[in-house]
C-alpha cells in the first residue's frame, strides 16, 4: 500500500528505541533515592473510623464563571451545529441519516464530544513510547483545524510522568521483573492458549494465584486477563434480580456494567456517607423488593478502596461494622489502593489494620502498582471453587499470558520482601513520602486538593473547563505530563488535574513539579482554597511562597498534625 506524504504523517510511527547508557536508562525509569530523609514509613490507622472527607469549596464567583464558561461553550456548540448542518453537510456526515441508514450516533448523544471535548482533544490520548516510568516519552504531534486531525513530525519529548498508574515504579525495562518476564517468554511463549477451564491454566497461573492469596491474606484467589473484564463479568455469577447491590455513587463503570449484567437491583448512596448508607440498608431490609415486598435474598455493599477521581479512601472500619450489624456482604475494589497503600502495600485493609477476612470479596488490578495487566478476585476457597465454574471469563475468555503473570509474581514478591529484600519496603516508603510531600506542598501554595493524606492519587481542582487545556498545555511545555479530567468522570463544574504519584520520582522531581505548578497556578488563577481543608494557621487561607514551601514541606509532610482527616 502506498500513502501520500501528507497521509503518512497523520499516523503515529513506531519510534525506534533510543540508544542510551544502561545507567541513564535506569535513572529515567526509576530515579534513585537522593536521601534517606525522603522516605516515610506509614502508620496504620488502628481501625479508627474516618470522618466524612473535608471537601474545600471555591469562592462563588469561580462557580459562576465555570457555569458561564459551559453556557458559552454550549451555545456556541449549538450555533456551530445549526450552521454546520445547514451549510457544511459534507463535514457532518457522521450525524446525518444517509441512504436509509441511521447515523452511528445521534447529534444529541454526541454533542458533548463533538462540540466540547473536541476543542481540547490535544490534551487526551497523547501517544507515548517506551517505558512509562519516571519520565514518559511523549510523541510530538501538531494539531490541525481545531483538533480535526494531528500530524506527527516524528520527534519525541521526555516529560516528567505524573500521569501513569505506576505507583510503585515497577514499569521498568531492567530489573528482576523484566528478567522474569523474558524468562517466561522462553518457557511458555506469549499465547494464552484458551479459556482457563479449557486449556488456559498453566502451573504459572496456579503459582501466581497462590501467591496473591497469601499476599492478600485470603484463602484463595483468581487472576483474570483484564481488570475491567474482572468486574464486568463477575457479578452475574452469584447475583440475580432478587439481590440488592448497594453501591457508592462514585464506583467505577466496570462495577456498574457488571451489576447491570447480573440483573440485580442497585441502590446508590452518597460518596462515603456512612449515615446515608446505614439508613438505606435499614430501609431496604424492612421494605424488601419493590412491588413484591419480599425480603432481599442478599445485600452486597460495593465500594472502592481508593476512589481514583477523588483520592478518598473508603471508610473501611465503619463499613465492616455496618456489614456485620446488618448481615450484608462487602465487596471492595482495590484497583488503585492495592500495592500502593498501607505500611506493607496490602491496600486499604493494611491502612486501617483490618483483617482481610472481614471483607467477603476483595478485587483489584495488576495494571497499576504491579506494572502488569489484568485483575484478581480473592475470597474464601469454597467461593472461589464455585467462581471457577461459574464465571463466564473463565470458560469463554482468554487466560492471562505468561509474561504478565511473571511480572505479577516478581513484583508481588518484591513487595513482600522475598525478592531483593528491602527494595519493596523502600518503594512503599518512597511513594508514601512523595504523595504526602506533593499534597501538602500544593495545599500550602493555595490550591484545592481532594483526598486522603496518604493517597497516591492527588486531584487538584481547576473548575473552569477552559483552564483544563491551558493547564495541560502549559505543563507539557514545561515537560510535565499530567492528566486532566472533566465531566462525565467528575461532577460538571469540578474539572480537575489528577497527579498520579509514583515511587520512581525523586524529591527533586517533585520540587520541579511544584515550582511549575506554582507558576502556572498564578497565571491561571488556580490558588483559590479557603483553608477549610488545611490545618488552621492564622485563620487565613494558606498562600505560601514557593521557596517557603520547598524549605519546610519535606520535613512537615511526615507529621499527621499538618493534615486534616
Amino acid at each position: 500500500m502506498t500513502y501520500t506524504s501528507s497521509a503518512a504523517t497523520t499516523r503515529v510511527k513506531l519510534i525506534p528505541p533510543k540508544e542510551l547508557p544502561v545507567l541513564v536508562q535506569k535513572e529515567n525509569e526509576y530515579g534513585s533515592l537522593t536521601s534517606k530523609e525522603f522516605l516515610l514509613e506509614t502508620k496504620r490507622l488502628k481501625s479508627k473510623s474516618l470522618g466524612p472527607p473535608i471537601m474545600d469549596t471555591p469562592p462563588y464567583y469561580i462557580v459562576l464563571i465555570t457555569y458561564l464558561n459551559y453556557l458559552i461553550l454550549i451555545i456556541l456548540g449549538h450555533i456551530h451545529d445549526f450552521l454546520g448542518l445547514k451549510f457544511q453537510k459534507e463535514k457532518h456526515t457522521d450525524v446525518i441519516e444517509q441512504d436509509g441508514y441511521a447515523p452511528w450516533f445521534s447529534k444529541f448523544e454526541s454533542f458533548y464530544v463533538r462540540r466540547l471535548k473536541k476543542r481540547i482533544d490535544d490534551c487526551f490520548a497523547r501517544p507515548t513510547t517506551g517505558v512509562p516510568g519516571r519520565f514518559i516519552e511523549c510523541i510530538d504531534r501538531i494539531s490541525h483545524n481545531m483538533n480535526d486531525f494531528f500530524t506527527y513530525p516524528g520527534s519525541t519529548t521526555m516529560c516528567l510522568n505524573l500521569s501513569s498508574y505506576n505507583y510503585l515504579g515497577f514499569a521498568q525495562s531492567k530489573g528482576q521483573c523484566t528478567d522474569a518476564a523474558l524468562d517466561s517468554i522462553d518457557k511458555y511463549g506469549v499465547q494464552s492458549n484458551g479459556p482457563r477451564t479449557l486449556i488456559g491454566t498453566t502451573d504459572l497461573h496456579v503459582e501466581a494465584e497462590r501467591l496473591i492469596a497469601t499476599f492478600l491474606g485470603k484463602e484463595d484467589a483468581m487472576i483474570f486477563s483484564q481488570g475491567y473484564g474482572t468486574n464486568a463479568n463477575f457479578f452475574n455469577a452469584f447475583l440475580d434480580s432478587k439481590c440488592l447491590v448497594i453501591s457508592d455513587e462514585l464506583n467505577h463503570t466496570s462495577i456498574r456494567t457488571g451489576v447491570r449484567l447480573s440483573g440485580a437491583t442497585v441502590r446508590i448512596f452518597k460518596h462515603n456517607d456512612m449515615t446515608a448508607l446505614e439508613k438505606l440498608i435499614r430501609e431496604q431490609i424492612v421494605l424488601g423488593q419493590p412491588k413484591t415486598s419480599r425480603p432481599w435474598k442478599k445485600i452486597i455493599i460495593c465500594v472502592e478502596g481508593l476512589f481514583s477521581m477523588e483520592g478518598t479512601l473508603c471508610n473501611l472500619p465503619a463499613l465492616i461494622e455496618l456489614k456485620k450489624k446488618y448481615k450484608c456482604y462487602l465487596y471492595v475494589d482495590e484497583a488503585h489502593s492495592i500495592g500502593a497503600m498501607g505500611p506493607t502495600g496490602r491496600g486499604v485493609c493494611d491502612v486501617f489494620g483490618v483483617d482481610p477476612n472481614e471483607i467477603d470479596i476483595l478485587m483489584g488490578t495488576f495494571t497499576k502498582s504491579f506494572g502488569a495487566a489484568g485483575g484478581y478476585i480473592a475470597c474464601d476457597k469454597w467461593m472461589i471453587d464455585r467462581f471457577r465454574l461459574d464465571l463466564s471469563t473463565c470458560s469463554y475468555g482468554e487466560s492471562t499470558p505468561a509474561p504478565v503473570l511473571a511480572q505479577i509474581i516478581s513484583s508481588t514478591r518484591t513487595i513482600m520482601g522475598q525478592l531483593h529484600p528491602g527494595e519493596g519496603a523502600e518503594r512503599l516508603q518512597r511513594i508514601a513520602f512523595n504523595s504526602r510531600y506533593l499534597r501538602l506542598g500544593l495545599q500550602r501554595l493555595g490550591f484545592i486538593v481532594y483526598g486522603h493524606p496518604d493517597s497516591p492519587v492527588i486531584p487538584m481542582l481547576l473548575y473552569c473547563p477552559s483552564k483544563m487545556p491551558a493547564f495541560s498545555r502549559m505543563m507539557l511545555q514545561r515537560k510535565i505530563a499530567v492528566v486532566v479530567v472533566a465531566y462525565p468522570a467528575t461532577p460538571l463544574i469540578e474539572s480537575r488535574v489528577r497527579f498520579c504519584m509514583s515511587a520512581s520520582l525523586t524529591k527533586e522531581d517533585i520540587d520541579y513539579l511544584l515550582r511549575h505548578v506554582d507558576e502556572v497556578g498564578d497565571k491561571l488563577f488556580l490558588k483559590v482554597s479557603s483553608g477549610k481543608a488545611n490545618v488552621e494557621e492564622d485563620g487565613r487561607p494558606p498562600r505560601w511562597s514557593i521557596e517557603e514551601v520547598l524549605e519546610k514541606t519535606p520535613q512537615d509532610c511526615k507529621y499527621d498534625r499538618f493534615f486534616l482527616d
Partner: protein
Amino acid sequence: MVAAASIDAVASTLPNSIPVPVPHFIAKLGCQLSSLLTLLLIHIPGGTQLLTYIKKSIHDDPYRAAVEIGLIVYGILYWLAKPKRTKKSYILNDSKLLLSEREINDLIEDWEPEPLVDASILEEQRWRLQSIPVIDTVTDDTKSLKQPFINISRDDNKEFYKNVLNLTSHNFLQISSLPQVLDVAKQTVENYGVGACGPAGFYGNQDAHYTTEYKLAEFFGTEGAVLYGQDFCVAASVIPAFTKRGDLIVADDQVSLSIQNALQLSRSTIYYFKHNDMESLENLLIELNESEKLEKLPAIPRKFIVTEGLFHNSGDLAPLPQLTRLKNKYKFRLFVDETFSLGVLGKTGRGLSEHFNMDRSSSIDITVGSMATAFGSSGGFVLGDHIMTFHQHIGSNAYCFSASLPAYTVLTLTKVLEIMDQDNSAVNKVQVLSKMLHDFFITDDQLSKFVEVTSDEQSPVLHFRLNQSFRDLIFHYSMDSLFETIIKFQQKNSTTRFIENFENEEKFLQKIVDKALIKHNILISRNTIVMKHESLPCLPSLKICVNANISEKILVDALANIKESILHCCQELVPKN
C-alpha cells in the same frame, strides 16, 4: 430625607382613583414599597425604562398589573416552597407503613440473607473442577517436549500425564511460537517493560498500539481498528456503544455468551432468527420493515443483524453473501463476531469475507476479533469504518475505562500479521488438517450411530455431539426441551441451575475425554458452556482443535484412538437386549 421626598413624589404619580376601595395603610405601604423599588431601579442600567413600563402599565390597566404582580408573588412562593412528595416512595416513615422503631428493629433482626455464593450443588459438580487440565512445565523433560505435546496435571497434582497430544489449543496457526516472533516480544519487553500503566485516553496508548491498529486495518482491508484488553469483553462493549432504547437488533438464536451479554446490555429491542436460516431472517426483516412504516418514527432507529463467523457453540459458518444481501436490502448493519474465523478462513486467513470472496469493508460493518485465538497473542479488537472506530474511543466502556494492552502483546500481533502477509502455509496447513478431521468423522459409519458433527469442514475446531436418537435413548431430552427448562429457570430468576439430564450428558462426555487422555494420551475437551449464563438454545458437545504444529500422521493416529474412546464409552451405555 431623600426617601421621604421621593415617597411623596411617587404618591403623586399614583392614579388618583383606585376603583376598589383600599384601606389607607395598604395604599401607604404600597407607596413606600414602590418608592424603594423605584430607587433601586433607577440605579440599575435599563431600570428607568422598566420603571416607565411599570408606571404605564399600572396607569393603563391596573387590573392587568395586579394579576401580573400576583403571578410574580405566586412564582416566588412556589419557588421557595419545599417540593411535596407526590410519587409514592419507599421511605420508612411513610404514612402507609406506620412502623415503630421497635418493629423496624425486629424486622432487621429477623432478616436472614442467603449465603453470598450458593454452594449447594458444588459437590455434585466438583468433577468439573477436577477435570481442568493444568499445563505443567516443572518436570525436567519439558525442554525435550515439542509442540504439540505437553505435560499436564489435574485435580491439584493428583493426576499427572506426560507427553500428551494437545488437541485443545485455540492457538491454531502457532505462528506466535516461532522464534522470530518471540524475539519481537522479548525486544518489546526490553524497550517498553510489561504493563502500559494507563488507559488509552491518558497516555496508555503507545506507538505500539497505534501501529498495530494500522496494521490490523490494513491486513483486513478496513478503514480502522480498535484494540481491547480482553476478547470476551469486546462485543459486550461495542454493541452497547452504538445502541440505545428503541434501536433494533436481529440476532442469530445460537450466538455465544459474549454476544448474549452484549444484547442484554444494549437496551435495544431484540429479535431472534433461526440459526443460520436466511428465510427466517428475511421474513423477520420484512415484518420489522412493515411495522416500522406503520409506526412513523421521527428518526430511523439504528438496526443491526448480529451473528458469528464460526459459531462458538457449533462451529458452523454464517452464510455471509446472503446476510450481506439482506442487510443491504433492508438497510441493516451487519455485526459479525469472528473470534474463531479470523486467521483460519480464506486463502490467506483474512476470515469469513475472504472465504466467500467478498470485500470486508463493504460486506461487514462491525467485525469483532480476538488476538488470543488464531493469532496467538492476547486481547481483542474491532474492525470497521473510520466513524465507527473513532466513536469507540469515547463511547465504548471496555476501551475507555480499561488499561491499554501490554506493548509486547500488540507488537507480537503485528509480527504475526507480517508473517501471514508473506506466507500462508500455516493457514493452508490448518485448513488441510481441518478438512481431514472433518472428513474422518463425517465418513465413519460406526461413529455416526452415536455422534453427529455440527461444525463446518473449514473450522479448525471440530464440534461433535451425541445424535438426538442416542440422546433420547440415554439422557431423555432434546435441545428444545432443554431450552424450555432454561426459560423456566430464567422466569424464576434462579441463579443456580442444575439440570440433571444435561449434567449427566456432560459427565458422560467428560468420560470420553478422560478415556482418550488416560488410555491414549490425547487431550480433547468438552465445549465449555456455563449453563447458568446461557439464555439461548444450546447442547453439550465435544471439541477437537487442530493447529499447524500437528503433522498429518499424528492426527490420523490420534483420530483412530479418539474414535475408539468414543465407541467404547458409547457402547457401554447402549442397553443390551
